[in-house]
């Protein structure tokens, strides 16, 4: 397996957000996590990526047979964990190409590969750009500065393609995307899908899952996975909302 989360609890500013998450992801699997606002979806993504604002209070996470929680965020990244941010940051004056070159070469170094020189790197970038129907003017623009919401998200997927991760976490990549951008992003992800790479797709809506068909769908509610199913579960949620789950899992109200 790639990732095994056991009874993970995490809090921020003393407030517990994740209350015992269990999840196993095998190579090549696509898992979707759905749930209403405030259920802890983005917290889960941040904790896995190693954001220091969150404190893990109990539980364990194993990534490629290592204790993930023991690794610094940059080591997690170099080991092949990628997070597509819900709100990608802007870095003025640093071109997308330069940023990515620093990033990709760190990852390559970690994996015992030679760093790319400028020419090779340009070639690789151009290939991936085509995949995402992006213009190469992207590369010379400052990272995300003045990018539209759709461009930022496409840039995340572009970086994902460049970094060749084993586990990609997409945190609400579909939010703020129009239907065309959504299709391009989804196609990008689908082209990267293979028997080795796994995905954890966090989303609010079923819409994205029309394009990226998941193997499993989990419902996160109040810091716990309360239901797991297949792609049909997503359709059901779309139709019925989340309220019916509350009655199906009555203990939840009391837990709160």
């Amino acid at each position, binding site marked *: 397996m790639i990732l095994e989360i056991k009874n993970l609890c995490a809090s921020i500013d003393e407030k517990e957000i994740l209350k015992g998450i269990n999840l196993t992801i095998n190579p090549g699997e696509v898992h979707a996590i759905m749930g209403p606002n405030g259920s802890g979806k983005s917290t889960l993504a941040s904790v896995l990526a190693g954001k220091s604002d969150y404190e893990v209070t109990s539980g364990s996470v194993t990534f490629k047979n290592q204790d993930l929680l023991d690794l610094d965020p940059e080591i997690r990244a170099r080991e092949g964990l990628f997070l597509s941010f819900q709100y990608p940051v802007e870095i003025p004056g640093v071109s997308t190409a330069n940023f990515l070159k620093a*990033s990709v070469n*760190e990852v390559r170094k970690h994996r015992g590969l030679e760093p790319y020189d400028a020419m090779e790197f340009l070639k690789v970038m151009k290939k991936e750009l085509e995949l995402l129907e992006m213009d190469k003017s992207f590369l010379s623009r400052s990272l995300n500065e003045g990018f539209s919401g759709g461009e930022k998200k496409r840039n995340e997927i572009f970086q994902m393609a460049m970094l060749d991760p084993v586990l990609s976490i997409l945190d609400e990549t579909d939010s703020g995307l129009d239907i065309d951008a959504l299709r391009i992003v989804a196609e990008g992800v689908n082209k990267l899908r293979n028997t080795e790479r796994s995905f954890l797709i966090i989303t609010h809506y079923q819409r994205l899952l029309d394009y990226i068909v998941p193997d499993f769908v989990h419902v996160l509610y109040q810091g716990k996975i309360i239901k797991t199913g297949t792609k049909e579960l997503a359709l059901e949620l779309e139709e019925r909302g989340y309220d019916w789950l509350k009655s199906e899992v009555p203990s939840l109200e009391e837990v709160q």
Partner: protein
Amino acid sequence: MANENELLTELTDSEYKYGFTSDIEQEYAPKGLSEDTVRFISQKKNEPEFLLEFRLKAYRHWLTMKDPQWQNVNFPTIDFQDIIYYAAPKKKQELQSLDEVDPELLKTFEKLGIPLSEQKMLAGVAVDAVFDSVSVATTFKDKLAEKGIVFCSFSEAVHSHPELIKKYLGSVVPYTDNFYAALNSAVFSDGSFCYIPKGVRCPMELSTYFRINAKNTGQFERTLIIADDESYVSYLEGCTAPMRDENQLHAAVVELVAHEKAEIKYSTVQNWYPGDKNGVGGIYNFVTKRGICKGISSKISWTQVETGSAITWKYPSVVLQGDNSVGEFYSVAVTNNFQQADTGTKMIHTGKNTRSRIVSKGISAGKSQNSYRGLVKVLKKAENARNFSQCDSLLMGDTCGAHTFPYLEIGNSSSVVEHEATTSKINEDILFYCNQRGISQEDAVALIVNGYCKEVLNQLPMEFAVEAQKLLAISLEGSVG
């Protein structure tokens, strides 16, 4: 954000790389300042009468002045009688070639990475190195002489080109200008002199390297650059000092004169010892730098990367006298720990259609204070003057400060003056984003800072831009994470 603060208090593991001293026999002036000190210096340097007069007038004027208090910096009152005003390596007597320079001294420059010996030299950089008070060697002099370019120590120029010194010394920065300019005019020891004749484009970067070595000494160098009609020169100065517990004073004066259609590009990478992480020691860098665009369509461009000194207090300025002349100021000022910087520029538009551009990038970390202070003055007769100013501040953590003091004095209604300012912070989110892409904290800071300063670094000659980038990273090492 408690976490971020914790990270930031782990500040400053970075050590000052240039903090060694060299064991060289020195010759000193007696401590303290009096007319006798001034005469001593002048006599040591075997100066002509007019220069002694200049010094004495400056000294007498200095006695009537009070040290300025308006800057946004704090430091104990300086005891001007507790400073040695002249220190020179003893063996320095009429050096003909590099072979005659004290090997200990050459070793020092080697440690600093200054390519003093010609064979090791970066192609196309001529260096004049000033060690404490005396200029040690000027390389490539002959090659420059072929073009009629004079590039030598100030002391040498006093003897070889007294007419130029007499004409231009104090013509841009008069000794009455300010307290430290008066002090410098009285006791300046050495510095660089440069003259580019009519129509000559200087074929290489000219460079001066300043280093304070002796204890308790002040360094008062004087630089004078004259670009005659339609000439061009690019000039770079670098500075370092050993680590010492006490504060040392550096009060230089730089004067630039650009004649008709001439262009002077003056770049500084200032890395004086900034003091330790508790704010002990470091250089007080009180410098007056000014250029005058005397001729029509002339241009003066200042670029500075300021990472050192306990206190930096300087405003490289341009007087835009010639019609259609251009003044530029590009600055990166980094403060960390307890450093204080009050720096900026003055653009004085007196000619018609004159243009100026100011790009200032301040970076504050630790408990430092970083101020931009700039004046744009358009005189009544300066028709169609234009200025664009951009002042950005970057904060690292929340125990440092950034301040902006822009002054505008516009006396002509046809002028257009624009001012933009931004303040941003290197926050956890940006660093985390970089981490998530496999980039470590240190590398992320360097990447972000270099991006932020790009517009200024682009102005530096290539090899120095690389140097400056590294210096920025070193200065901010340990300032996060």
